[in-house]
């Protein structure tokens, strides 16, 4: 019973993530790749993502602090960050990244700062959600 309940909970949580736009089809692809050979593939990838993306965030922060402002470099870093995020299916995050890049292109410092805050926030929110989801999913197994 409990198992079922947990499973059900996990499923709901998962669905919510999709419905609320946090995740997209790419996440499904990751799930598809999970099999006997790779039982925890999705979790592994997400973990890897979070350790790697922290690096990106830090880089952007450092670049934002520098003077004069280097939009190109920012755009560059963000491009990579966006690539990673899209690989795990982080939908909202991807949108924020694109927005950030737009501001970079037009050289809008204010816009960049603002958007970056949102990026950081989304990043953190998604991380928490995914963590609890995985935890639940593992328990439910």
């Amino acid at each position, binding site marked *: 019973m409990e198992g079922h309940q947990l499973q059900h909970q996990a499923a709901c949580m998962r669905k919510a993530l999709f419905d609320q736009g946090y995740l997209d089809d790419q996440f499904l*692809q990751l799930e*598809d790749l999970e099999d006997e050979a790779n039982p925890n593939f999705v979790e592994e990838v997400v973990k890897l993502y979070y350790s*790697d993306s922290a690096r990106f965030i830090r880089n952007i922060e450092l670049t934002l602090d520098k003077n004069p402002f280097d939009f190109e470099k920012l755009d560059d870093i963000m491009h990579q960050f966006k690539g990673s995020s899209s690989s795990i299916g982080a939908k909202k995050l991807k949108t924020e990244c694109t927005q950030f890049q737009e501001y970079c292109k037009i050289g809008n410092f204010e816009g960049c700062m603002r958007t970056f805050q949102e990026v950081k926030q989304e990043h953190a929110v998604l991380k928490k959600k995914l963590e609890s989801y995985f935890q639940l999913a593992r328990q439910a197994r």
Partner: protein
Amino acid sequence: MTVEKIRGDNENSDNFPVGLRVLAVDDDPICLKLLETLLRKCQYHVTTTSQARMALKMLRENKDRFDLVISDVHMPDMDGFKLLELVGLEMDLPVIMLSANGDPKLVMKGVTHGACDYLVKPVRIEELRNIWQHVIRRKKFDSRNQNKSAEHVKSHHASREGHGSATMGNADQSGKFNRKRKDEEDESEDNGNESEDPATQKKPRVVWSIELHRKFVAAVNQLGIEKAVPKRILDLMNVEGLTRENVASHLQKYRLYLKRISSVATQQANMVAALGVKDSPFMRIGPFEGLGDFRTLAGPGRLANAGLSPYTTGGMLGRLNTPANVNLHNLTPPALLQPTHAQNITAIGEMHPILSPTNQSPSLFQGMPSSLELDQLQQNKCSTGIVNFNAVDDSRMYTASNAFTDTGTAIGSSTSIVNGIQGTPVMLHGNSQQTLSGGGFGCHSSHNMTSFSLESLTAGVNGSSNLLDPGSIESCKVQPNSVLSTDPFHSQLPLNGVRENNFSNGSYLHNNPVDISTTMALPFEDSREMQCQESLVGNVQNITQTPSQKWCEQGQNYSHSSKTTFGSSDSYIPANGAVSPLSRSMGQDSEIFNQKTGMFINSRSTGGASNLMQKNENEKLATESRARSNENFLLEQPKSRGFVPRSYDSLDAMMNAMIKREQDEAIPNCDFGFDDYSFGAAM
């Protein structure tokens, strides 16, 4: 970095694509891991690395270790495109680009650098399931190309040389040709040896990337364009995996290109070079769009620039060479056209100058490919060349004129074209020169152009400027037999010249067709020949061969701006009689041509041209050509137009054909072949 053991070949061949050996390169660990898993899921053997240098090292250690490379575009230690180039050059493996950025410009860049595919992150498994096709495709085409190119090189050289001497009549030029030929022949021999062992020694496909071409140009400049020999260039360039043959063929194209473009062209040339020689399909990308630009630009001669950029690659250059002459302007007055096919043919024969297009072609192609839509051209082997030319012609004409000046051949016409086009019927003469009377390459075209333009001009053909001022054209006059003679076109030669350039500046339209056919007669084996044929149709019908579509488009385009550019296409004017190969196309071409010309005429002068056309004897020719003209060509155009269009058609057709030829990868040296075309006719 994980390394997987490479299984035996047996596994690969038995169960392909299972076991496909892929090397994945991406600095992003998440993407790399994902990619690896996806590939494994497809049952491929995957080796991953996050550093491009490491990837290169692995590839160099054992060229047979991998079947395919997937690389990210954005990497810290090396640009993905650079890696792509190197892999393509050294190992000749298919490379797939990967990027989070799906901007078409980047995709285009990838393609021009030689990527066989471009995937956008996040990658899906369905996309990866099909990547094995690239491996098969490359294997197949590579071995075929290698053998073919060797053969072509030899045959081309031979034919070219013969013609070259005939038309060029220039000691230096012939000398150059001879020298080139020798070099190339040597190379072909080398290649021949190599191709004996395709499995062990796959000749890397040369992608003339921007960087590579830059090196090439630097080497050439260092040696001096006149003294630049493939061997020395190769030594100077010091690029691994590049053979003398590659350099030689590229040099040929480059020379033609230079002729075609003058100062303006420089930019374009770069673009072309950058594009490198690509498969015809690739080149085809050029579509007409460029043409449209040309047209509009046509007036001022700006086209050249516009058109050129899209030009995909050297390949095109080579082929285009001939069409360049397009200067068709010559709308060769009815008188010229008059000569029934037979006459035309003969006329064309005299014209040979048409050949000059080769010079132009380089420029022509540049513009053309993009506009002409090489694809279409390809269809008709010949037609493409022609088509291209047409489109290019317009632009080319301008550029060509410029280009020619490079060589100092007096392209003058090009400039004059612009001037002349405006409606100076006389111009035609000059136009031909554009063609390239340029020295080495095939200035022949020059002659044609003038003749045509003159004619057309006289006809009243829409001023399309094609007709370069006779005065300026002087240089062009060089070859054109009678055509150039300022007399305007009527003389028929214009056709010849025109053909080559296909530029058929509008004016050429009518009269030229006749000439063109002759030139076309050249028995080119390549598509070019075909093109010629088409153009030869005598009616000046557009070289129908080349995808008529293109022509039509071109014609249309031309029509607008027609001012100047028309000439080119029309120049094709298939000689109908003269060229046997052409004859095929000719029949149809004539039709097309007529139609085409009709187009031109209509658009251009808003009927002015058409009037002219009708007046011209062209009608006669037109009908003839019609029958002959190849189907494709501009058939749409009102046949009633009269002959005037004819000239165009042929020119265009020629151009297209020419272009097509170039496109055809098979004939790497096609470009050179163009010379032959014009010559052929001349004969």
